């Protein structure tokens, strides 16, 4: 490729993206985990405080209520007229919005006495009178207060069952520490996403709940892919290895970094399309709610699978006597041969430096490739 030639002539090389994609940039995620920990803790603290102060803005599916979408209005009316019509029917606290340059309106009210009952009928009659829209032009969505509670309970129960099953599966497939690290990451993602929702005040609808649940799946999937590699690489470590568990995990993390970033991008692209197209369509609230929560959650999930999951796992693992001893041994050995950066034994110690360490490549492999 011609650009390979040009970059070859320039020692400082191309941008960060290119270096990441070509895997010549090395990041010391584990060594820097303290910084990431601070970032995460600050973020969590901000959203936790903000979330507690503001609370979540639940949509009528959870609180109970009626949402009316009025189209084809033929009369001139103001939001005030509409609000009066609704309160004449005995429904107080309605939110009214005139849209489409006066041809349509959105009305949402707290729960009516009885869905399909007289109060609701009076309200719809009042609205048709004010707006001149036919009854067929009013799309009505009514939810009873008990139903919302039921949905919430069911979602929470589903979440709990899911967490238990996943923890069991990961503990069996890998080990309990990985399961614990994956669950911690998951909780981190959910708290952050829900917290952002609370602070910004986005309404939480069933669609956002679906999205939150998807984020769980995504976050876990991401974490599992990384852990799969960490498990594979660290399985080769013996007690006389020259690298600590943390360094090996960091290498594994770097190996799957392109995949993590690419996957996040390929997941965010369709969701971004959904968000953009859903936003330009009146009534397609489901699409928009879903896409918004997914967009935020996936971004959070990518971040955490790299800088939360593995550092936490390493922290847990290096408490194990076996890996703690290895770490001690490697560090004391390195104390003596500190300057010998070219020796393969010191690959781990160069990780923290800003100039990336060359990937350990044997001359044999190069010879083979050129053949």
């Amino acid at each position, binding site marked *: 490729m011609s650009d390979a030639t040009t970059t*070859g002539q320039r020692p400082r090389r191309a941008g960060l993206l*290119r270096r990441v994609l070509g895997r010549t940039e090395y990041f010391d995620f584990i060594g820097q985990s303290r910084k990431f920990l601070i970032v995460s803790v600050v973020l969590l603290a901000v959203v936790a405080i903000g979330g507690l102060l503001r609370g979540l803005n639940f949509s009528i599916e959870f609180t109970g209520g009626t949402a009316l979408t009025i189209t084809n209005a033929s009369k001139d009316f103001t939001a005030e007229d509409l609000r009066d019509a609704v309160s004449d029917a005995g429904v107080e606290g309605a939110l009214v919005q005139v849209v489409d340059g006066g041809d349509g309106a959105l009305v949402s009210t707290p729960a009516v006495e009885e869905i399909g009952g007289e109060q609701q009928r009076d309200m719809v009659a009042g609205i048709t009178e004010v707006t001149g829209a036919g009854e067929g032009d009013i*799309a009505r969505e009514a939810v009873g207060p008990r139903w919302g509670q039921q949905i919430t309970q069911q979602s929470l129960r589903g979440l709990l069952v899911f967490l238990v099953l996943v923890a069991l599966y990961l503990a069996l497939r890998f080990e309990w520490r990985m399961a614990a690290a994956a669950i911690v990451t998951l909780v981190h993602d959910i708290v952050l996403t829900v917290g952002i929702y609370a602070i910004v005040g986005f309404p939480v609808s069933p669609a956002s709940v679906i999205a939150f649940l998807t984020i769980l799946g995504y976050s876990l999937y991401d974490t599992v892919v990384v852990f799969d590699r960490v498990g594979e690489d660290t399985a080769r470590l013996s007690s006389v290895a020259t690298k600590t568990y943390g360094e090996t995990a960091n290498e594994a993390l770097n190996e799957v970094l392109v995949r993590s970033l690419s996957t996040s991008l390929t*997941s965010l692209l369709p969701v971004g399309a959904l968000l953009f197209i859903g936003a330009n369509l009146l009534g397609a609230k*489901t699409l928009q709610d879903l*896409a918004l929560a997914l967009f935020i959650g996936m971004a959070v999930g990518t971040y955490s699978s790299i800088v939360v999951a593995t550092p936490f796992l390493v922290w847990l693992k290096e408490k194990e006597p076996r890996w703690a001893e290895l770490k001690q041994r490697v560090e004391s050995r390195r104390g003596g041969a500190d300057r010998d950066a070219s020796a393969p034994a010191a690959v781990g110690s160069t990780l923290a430096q800003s100039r990336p360490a060359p990937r350990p490549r044997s001359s044999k492999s190069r010879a083979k490739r050129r053949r």
Partner: protein
Amino acid sequence: MGRGKLVVSLVAFLAVVAGMWGFIIAKRWTPQLGLDLQGGVSIILAPAPGQTVDLAVLERTVGVIRNRIDQLGVAEPDIAQQGETVQVQLPGLADQEEAEDVIGRTAQLQMRPVLADIPADSPEYGNTPPCTETIEAVPAADEEVVLCERSVADAASDEPGADPEELPRDQWNKLRVAPVALGGDDIANAIAEADPTTGVGWQVALRLNSGGAKKFEDITADLACKDLADPQRRFAIVLDGIVESAPGVSEQVQCNVGITGGDAVITVGGDEDEARELALVLRTGALPIQLDIQESRSVSPTLGRSSLQAGLLAGFAGLVLVCAYLLFLYRGIGLAAIAELVMFGLVTLGLIIILGNTVGFALTLAGIAGVIVSIGIAADSSIIYRERFKDELRAGRTIRTAADKAFSSSFKTNLTGNTVSFLAAVVLYVLAVGPVRGFAFTLGLSTLVDTLLLATFTRSVFALIARSRFARSRFMGLRSNVFEDAPAAEPAGGATR
């Protein structure tokens, strides 16, 4: 796997996909769309609190609701029982209000002899539950009870033809009534008709079955023996716990003979629509339990269509963007990744269509979202495979062995990751209600397709390319990482050759 086996597995996969689509096209099947995409009315009902509900009762309830909807004349209604709830879906241009009236009404009809009036100033009036509270639709059938009577203002009756003004509930009369003498089961037919005496109001004429006619004859024969002025010479017609009227037995009826023939009439205060709806629910029988509407929503067909278009457009745009990225990242072999995505789309869409036409799976907006999300999952499998392949190349393997080795390790990763996703989908499907289920279904389905695809199509295509003479072409991007600044590590000649 040898070349022969790879070719066989590729051909077999393509044959199955072609066969599936051939079948779909031959049958002219299209995806079954959910209400939010084709428009319609969706109503979810749940038993009112404080009732004992078992499976048999729910099944009977669904049966009654189905009968009622059939009489409404809606095409292809879908009535399903989910947990303790009953979900009713009426596609197309259904009348939401009419549906609510007809479906949600218990229609528990009771005829009970009146024992006593309870005037508003008597102490008993205050001691019994006020009429303003929610009234139980199914009052105890075999005991004496006190019920509220729908009452109208006296003045209105002076002007013939005028709609009598109904009194607010706190001014309603109360009646003490005897156990049920005649119930909804005794009705053979119910028809709405104009009131023949005034010609203005509407009423529902009841035709009783033979058992009902006998019972009716017996109680009227009994009541006719009472004094004309006696309040007990009346029977109360109770509908859903409210006394709709308490007509007296006329003086023409003879003691111990009663009214024969098995016809009775219920006068209703409302208009023709109300009479027709009442006749319909009486004809189709009472619900065995009282149901409350938990959720009721309507979507206009135009809105549904534009949602569908938006969903498809978003999916298409997402697919194009992902393809462009894969091509940027992987050059020639990225084309194979695009083919994988296209196959993924074909198989998933094909399965959705087939499931829609066989087990009635309806594609909803949430379902489309699930598919769009799974584009990311499918692309991820391609990415994991290719990244793994690069790792193997770097470790010094030949293109061919690297491709094979990359498959086995990426398949393992895919399996672990997809197990978690699939687990999520199953838990969601089993435990959730409403739109979440549609989402979970498509998500689970795409997870399965993804793993299947990796094991057959992706593997064969990649391995065959790796074995072909194109593998060494620069365009394929297989030889080494196309983004790697190879010259730093390799002699410049190697890269510029």
